[in-house]
């Protein structure tokens, strides 16, 4: 028997490594990755969102510096230069944005009114006018030459009062962004406070607060916003106020749900038994869990606010005259859409890119903060 175990010991290929050594965890190599750094790493991988972030940055930058680049101010009127098409130095040589416009002109007026400003005659035809045949031509006319603005360049043309569309567009973008950001910031503050109180205290407080929300959200938001803008008059501040009336409800609901999810968990209970006050529990222990959803939801709310702003401006309930916003510019452009599409084109492009970028950016943020939600838009 003894011999057998001895035999076994000899054959045993294993040996104890650390009979005398002390066991210890290995030290971490490299730095710990925090919540935001982790999210940033994931966000970088999302190409579409990264491009969107770049475009948002570009548009914000342009909204700040672009009006300074032009020599015209946003309310400077040159009636004699009204409705000029866009003309950009450099690009005009290729043949686009060279300040020309295709027009139908009477052949007889070619040499009088349009002398010197005709670039190219494209086709000649006859028009019947009350039985008479009038010779007409379709010609490319240099509008800048025609209206005596030979050496000026309006990069995006001018509007019906001869104001520089470039300056107005970026000034308008600035105002739209301002309204969007202001409204969303205030909404987040109100929503977080309201939701926290309602969710944390629960019971009767929650019941009363939720009934108030129910009534407020029962009124169609558009109706409420329209009434408020009507009542307070046009302007940036009334606009922001009107959007705050119901804008915070979504945020407060989300925060309330977060509080319901976390307030019963053991770590909160542990903290409470150790004597933590309500304030500490709310701000230090529960609210930080919601930081990802808050940022994501706020990002999605910005294009929403910009949309409502331009929607109302489009209806003529928007900002008052000289201040432009993207919605005001679009509404002005709509009136002359068929004759002067450039007035609609540029604001439309900017608002589309802005909304698209914010939505893609928000998607990327949501995926980065909470990878489990990926794929469900």
């Amino acid at each position, binding site marked *: 028997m003894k011999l057998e175990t001895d035999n076994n010991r000899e054959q045993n290929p294993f040996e104890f490594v650390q009979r005398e050594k002390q066991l210890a965890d290995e030290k971490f190599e490299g730095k710990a990755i925090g919540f935001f750094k982790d999210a940033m790493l994931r966000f970088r991988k999302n190409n579409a969102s990264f491009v969107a972030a770049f475009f948002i940055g570009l548009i914000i930058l342009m909204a700040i510096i672009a009006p300074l680049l032009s020599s015209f101010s946003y309310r400077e009127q040159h009636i004699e230069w009204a409705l000029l098409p866009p003309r950009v130095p450099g690009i005009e040589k290729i043949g686009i944005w060279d300040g020309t416009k295709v027009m139908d002109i009477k052949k007889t007026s070619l040499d009088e009114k349009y002398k010197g400003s005709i670039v190219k005659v494209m086709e000649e035809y006859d028009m019947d006018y009350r039985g008479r045949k009038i010779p007409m031509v379709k010609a490319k006319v240099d509008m800048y030459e025609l209206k005596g603005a030979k050496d000026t360049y309006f990069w995006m043309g001018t509007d019906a009062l001869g104001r520089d569309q470039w300056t107005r567009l970026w000034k308008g973008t600035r105002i739209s962004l301002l309204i969007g950001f202001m409204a969303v910031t205030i909404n987040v503050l109100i929503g977080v406070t309201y939701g926290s109180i309602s969710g944390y205290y629960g019971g009767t407080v929650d019941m009363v607060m939720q009934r108030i929300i*129910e009534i407020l959200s029962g009124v169609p938001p558009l109706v409420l916003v*329209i009434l408020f803008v009507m*009542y307070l008059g046009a302007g940036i501040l009334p606009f922001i106020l009107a959007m705050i009336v119901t804008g915070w409800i979504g945020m407060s609901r989300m925060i309330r749900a977060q509080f319901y999810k976390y307030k019963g968990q053991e770590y909160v209970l542990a903290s409470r038994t150790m004597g933590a006050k309500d304030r500490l529990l709310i701000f230090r222990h529960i609210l930080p869990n919601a930081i990802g959803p808050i940022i994501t939801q706020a990002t999605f709310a910005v294009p929403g606010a910009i949309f409502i702003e331009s929607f109302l401006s489009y209806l003529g309930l928007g900002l008052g005259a000289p201040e432009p916003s993207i919605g005001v510019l*679009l509404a002005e452009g709509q009136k002359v859409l068929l004759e002067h599409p450039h007035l609609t084109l540029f604001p439309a492009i900017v608002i589309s890119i802005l909304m698209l970028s914010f939505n893609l950016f928000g998607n990327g943020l949501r995926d980065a903060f909470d990878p489990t939600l990926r*794929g469900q*838009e």
Partner: protein
Amino acid sequence: MLRYISQRLIAMAITLFLIISLLFFLVHSMPGSIVNDPMLPIDIKERIEAKYHLDKPLVVQYVYFLGDFLTFNFGDSIKVQPKVPVFDIIKDKLPITIQLNILALLFTLPIGVICGIMAALKKNTATDHGLNMMVVLFISVPSFVIAALLQYIVAFKWELVPILLSAEQALTWTKFKSMILPILALSFGEIAIVTRYLRAELCETLNSDYMLLARTKGLSQMQATLRHAIRNSFIPLANIFIPMIFSILSGAIVIENIFSVPGLGSLSINAINALDHPLTIAVMFFYSLIALISILVVDLSYGIIDPRIRMGGKK
């Protein structure tokens, strides 16, 4: 169930009462008088104001207003179409708005559902990515930008359809042709929403066990999807379908303006701008009513679509 419905109806009545009070006080405290003709002698102006009780204190006006409201009398329009009952004006403008809405819905739903199914079945392929791009694009670009673009390219440059809505009363072919663009402009955003929602739902359903069972039973992917997966994905779809009616309706305010449709949207703008108080209140009330009814119908429809859901039940 009956008890739940009656509870909801009472809650709805309270909300409506609050809305109508809010509407009344907001609208009546707006600056400006309905009589803004400076040439009118003072005493005539006062008499006109007295006729509409506008000289009395706001609270007295409110009592008059509530009395009328309880008998469903919204009063006569003051400025947009003077002396015509508000109810008749709305009745007049309603058909074209409803036509546009229903046609837009009829166009939206099938296309949205088909796109959603395609995206879910071909998940993570080129089709899916293409549809995804479309969804993000149409959700982001505002409907009035799309409308302006359609109006310029399709109607003006290509001359395929008329630029504005034709003024004919009956729904003829020419009228329908002129309605195509507003319908398209109203639908694109909603199609994108339906597609996105259905895709997310279907993707989840397709991975469930009973789908695997259906496949092992011998059903083809198509049969299994159409007979089993779709049904379960339609429940959440009901959640967005009825609010969609309202969102199309409010989106139509701008679209109607662009294509000069003489509908409810342009009526509400006219009423607001003309300070026509009875008309403004009536139109806004109408919009609120539709919104509230749609919320109620959504909640009730859960139980009908999926009998497992009991609304208002306790634990």
